[in-house]
């Protein structure tokens, strides 16, 4: 078998497409050009939802800060949370701008590189957020207890606060260990994705795609 045979086989597939003309036309006739549920449009769904959530968080924290700005024991944890939410908000905005700039009619290598980079950036953000979220646990409970219940958590004593900090620190390696154990084994898609993100499995895949693209561009 030679290359010419391969081209003949390709033409044979072409002929079959013609044989099924009626079926193919039906596919295009049923096409709803304004359909809203496009899988590609969902690229922006995640960052957009996070943007709204973080925006809401920023508003609530802003309001809390305005009320307690002169009380350092509340203002400091609220400022820490505020800074974290601001960073997340900036990351979401950056991703949305990059998604909006995607021109699907650009050359394949360029768009695939952009998409792989975008995916890698998104996974890194998720990974960092999930890994460092336990560190924010203590300021979060202090602010939430005061803001939602009007309760001063410091009244429980320094030991309680220290235990909370220790708990936050312990959760990081524990979470990492659990994610590595569970990566590739969970059935609900979103849990699987989270475990893969934390364990670095998704990032490895995205970086693998970037390497594949670089190899493809290599002229040697």
């Amino acid at each position, binding site marked *: 078998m030679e290359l010419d045979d*391969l081209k003949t086989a390709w033409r044979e597939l072409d002929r079959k497409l013609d044989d099924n003309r009626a079926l*193919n036309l039906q596919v295009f006739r049923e096409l709803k050009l304004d359909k809203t549920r496009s899988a590609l449009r969902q690229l922006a769904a995640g960052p957009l939802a996070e943007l709204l959530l973080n925006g809401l968080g920023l508003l609530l924290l802003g309001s809390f800060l305005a009320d307690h700005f002169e009380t350092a024991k509340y203002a400091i944890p609220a400022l820490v949370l505020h800074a974290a939410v601001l960073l997340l908000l900036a990351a979401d905005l950056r991703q949305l701008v990059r998604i909006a700039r995607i021109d699907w009619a650009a050359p394949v290598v360029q768009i695939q590189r952009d998409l792989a980079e975008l995916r890698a950036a998104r996974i890194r953000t998720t990974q960092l957020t999930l890994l460092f979220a336990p560190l924010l646990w203590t300021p979060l409970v202090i602010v939430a207890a005061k803001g939602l219940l009007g309760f001063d958590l410091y009244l429980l004593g320094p030991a309680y606060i220290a235990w909370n900090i220790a708990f936050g620190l312990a959760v990081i390696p524990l979470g990492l260990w659990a994610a590595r154990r569970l990566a590739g084994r969970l059935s609900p898609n979103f849990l699987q994705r989270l475990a893969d993100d934390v364990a670095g499995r998704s990032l490895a895949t995205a970086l693998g795609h970037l390497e594949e693209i670089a190899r493809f561009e290599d002229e040697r």
Partner: protein
Amino acid sequence: MHTPRATDSPQDRFQELLERHRRIILKVASTYCRDAEDRRDLTQEISVQLWRSFPRYDEERSFSTWMYRIALNVAISYARGAGHRARHAVPLDESADGPADERAAVPESDPRVQALHRVIDQLDPLNRALALLYLEERSYREIAEVLGITETNVATKIHRLKQRIRTGFAAAEPR
């Protein structure tokens, strides 16, 4: 190049172009999706993306090049996307058309088509795009334009692809 009539609405012009070049979409979809339902979804996904990008299409430029870029970009992203799609993204080991049950009942009998399927199955998404454009007998210049690499690189890659195919065939030949 497309010459629009003054009376055509953008949607009419688009539908006409889509109909004229639908074979490109079908070929791309069948290169990246094995499952009939996925292939249908991908066909729609590509068509919708083409329609969304149509207002930015420069009519001075080749419609097929523009269409190949979008179709391949969408197909590669689709194949690399959700897990359920990835499971089906081992393309072309069935006939490129027809209902799934019909295909299952009549397995591909042409050994050349079977060999073609085997070759394409082994390629990564970008080399699959290159193979598709090569088999469609597009010029090196157009392939370079669609993929965004140099013509020299296209020539090198096609040379390697041919070698790989020959080696693959030689290994598969009965002794």
